[in-house]
């Protein structure tokens, strides 16, 4: 069934992406094995060991610990993995939803599905604990928050167990892990409902006075039913474009909502969009052929008509990744994220800024980043946050904003009176930044500048007032952008381009094309005649334009930034978050 998914990149798509005139730097590869030999053991205190107040069923306390065999250089950063919602029990090829398992059925070990990541992280000196959450999955649809708090409490319970292992020791390991875990340097990765679980856990732990030092949080294809907002911890939300389960990619809200939420937030935030990935293949236990029951390619199984989609379906020339390739993306970015933010391996930072191509272990280059720099004047100068109608004429630093030849030229997606949806007639699954959340349905989404042009003279300018003109300390001019697939001024399969000009106080200008530095102006793939299919999508990725390409202007005194739409006679885009950044 999966044979047609093995083509890594659509030939047409590869052609125009490769056409960008860039000389990319090479990132070190975070997905290769490290120097430590690795071992794994499990602890299991029983299927009904935990009862949570207000939660209607018992929960198991069962997890695996993957660790460096040589624990001499302890303590090690500690990473918690939490799987998502899935069937809980199986018998032969049949899957069931109950807990504990009855009638001779066995638990489905979803928590084992990320061992391929645990092994690599442990080989680099991490301890990785992967938690089973079948008891939550069995009944979480019967509680209002759909299990978010229960998942957070389960993680906290396991951290307390680890604290015991780490201090006095305890069964079944004795003192093996005494002093081995640095529980003030903790990271969490949650898949799907586990993704909201790790965000909710960060907030729970903080509300308890932060007994554990959670520094980095990685929601993988997450739900965001309740719209919790996470600040002051490093964040990367990985989103699979061909997700057939959480097909609206609602987890992008974690990034969007956190950006300007807490002044002085020094934590870096990222999104990682994987164009060829589905929901399930990150977990081997959920992958067809790797476990006897409950597996699915969610795109083909759950999306009516999805099989024939030219990008996410099974047709020749599609853009889908094989399960092995998809695991490569998860491995590279999850391992890289924790090595960067818990292991202080700063060489991986360019990967998460989108400043370098994905590494070989990712097994695809069609991965795109958004990056939000720390709220520190040395790291980021917000030129135009594009948060309300004021920003159509006056930007965040107080400079004038002007345009010519743009139509429409308005904001959408953010707080009222902006229209709630940027494409009002299109399904939510195609507009992740504004898709409503199940338990917070009135909360608005990302405010975006919606605009288009119909001749080569169109332009958009942001002036920088005195006092905001010295940008020499920054590495790039950046903004988030998506091609508007719905506007007929864009042609399916054809990427956009435009020029950016910086002008200094003496009137000197320097210009570059976005395509010279960035790959993000691609037409979102997957167009078809089926109107309910969740692709193409509006998804904003960060374009990073190095200031070094603007030769001949005085970066101590930049007076204006001009977007000049003189490369193509027509087009339409969404943008947000115009800034100078590190």
């Amino acid at each position: 069934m999966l044979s047609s998914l093995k083509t890594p990149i659509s030939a047409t798509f590869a052609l125009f992406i490769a056409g960008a005139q860039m000389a990319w730097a090479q990132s070190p590869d975070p997905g290769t094995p490290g120097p430590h030999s690795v071992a794994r053991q499990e602890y299991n205190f029983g299927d009904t060991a935990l009862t949570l107040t207000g939660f209607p069923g018992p929960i198991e306390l069962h997890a695996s610990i993957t660790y460096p065999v040589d624990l001499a250089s302890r303590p090690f950063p500690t990473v918690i993995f939490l799987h998502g919602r899935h069937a809980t029990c199986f018998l032969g090829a049949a899957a069931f939803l109950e807990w504990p398992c009855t009638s001779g059925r066995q638990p489905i070990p979803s928590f084992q599905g990320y061992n391929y990541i645990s092994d690599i992280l442990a080989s680099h000196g991490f301890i990785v604990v992967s938690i089973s959450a079948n008891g939550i999955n069995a009944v979480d649809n019967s509680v209002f928050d759909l299990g978010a708090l229960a998942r957070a409490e389960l993680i906290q319970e396991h951290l307390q167990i680890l604290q015991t292992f780490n201090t006095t020791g305890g069964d079944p390991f004795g003192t093996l892990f005494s002093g081995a875990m640095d529980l003030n340097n903790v990271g969490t990765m949650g898949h799907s409902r586990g993704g909201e679980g790790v965000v909710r856990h960060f907030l729970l732990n903080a509300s308890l006075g932060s007994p554990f030092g959670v520094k980095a949080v990685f929601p993988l294809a997450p739900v965001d039913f309740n719209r919790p907002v996470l600040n002051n911890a490093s964040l990367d939300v990985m989103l699979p474009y061909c997700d057939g389960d959480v097909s609206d990619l609602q987890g992008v809200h974690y990034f969007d909502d956190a950006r300007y939420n807490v002044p002085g937030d020094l934590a870096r935030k990222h999104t990682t969009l994987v164009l060829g990935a589905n929901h399930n293949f990150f977990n081997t236990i959920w992958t067809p052929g790797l476990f006897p029951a409950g597996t699915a390619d969610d795109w083909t199984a759950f999306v009516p008509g999805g099989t024939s989609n030219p990008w996410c379906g099974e047709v020749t020339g599609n853009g889908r990744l094989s399960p092995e390739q998809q695991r490569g993306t998860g491995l590279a970015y999850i391992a890289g994220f924790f090595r960067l933010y818990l292991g202080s391996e700063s060489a991986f930072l360019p990967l998460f800024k989108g400043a370098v191509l994905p590494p070989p272990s990712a097994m695809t280059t069609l991965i795109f980043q958004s990056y939000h720099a720390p709220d520190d004047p040395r790291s980021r100068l917000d030129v135009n946050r594009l948060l309300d109608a004021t920003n159509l004429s006056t930007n965040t630093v107080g400079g004038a904003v002007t345009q010519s030849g743009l139509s429409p030229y308005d904001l959408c997606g953010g707080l009222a009176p902006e229209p709630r949806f940027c494409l009002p007639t299109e399904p939510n699954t195609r507009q992740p930044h504004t898709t409503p959340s199940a338990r917070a349905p009135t909360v608005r989404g990302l405010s975006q500048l919606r605009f288009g042009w119909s001749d080569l003279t169109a332009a958009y300018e942001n002036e920088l007032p005195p006092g905001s003109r010295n940008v020499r300390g920054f590495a790039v001019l950046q903004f988030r952008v998506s091609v508007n697939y719905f506007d007929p001024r864009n042609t399916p399969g054809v990427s956009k381009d435009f020029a950016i000009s910086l002008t200094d106080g003496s009137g000197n200008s320097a210009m570059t094309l976005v395509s010279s530095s960035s790959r993000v102006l691609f037409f979102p793939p997957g167009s078809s005649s089926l109107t309910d299919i969740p692709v193409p999508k509006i998804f904003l990725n960060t374009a990073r334009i190095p200031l070094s390409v603007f030769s001949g202007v005085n970066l101590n005194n930049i007076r204006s930034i001009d977007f000049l739409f003189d490369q193509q006679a027509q087009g339409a885009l969404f943008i947000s978050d115009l800034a100078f950044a590190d």
Partner: protein
Amino acid sequence: MNVVKSIKTNQSSNVEIELKSTKEFPVRDAVIELRIGNQTFKRSRPGPDGSLNTIIFVLTNDEFVRINTGDSVTVGFSHEPPGWNFGNVDKTLLDK
């Protein structure tokens, strides 16, 4: 084949609507919804045998009052078209 198996008042005075289908209700991370007329209900639990062919939706008494006999009954995942059609609801089946 899709069947409304029962409509019962439970011990908490909520109303449980048990649905059976030969097409399994997959265990997904997206929210599964019962749609009756223009109203949507998200609280659910599996049937007592753990089979994926049964799902029980739980409505408060107030929610049940607001639905009307004859309203269409479908099940689907949030933001998606309905995947199961159960015809029209008959409120007179409550506790029968």
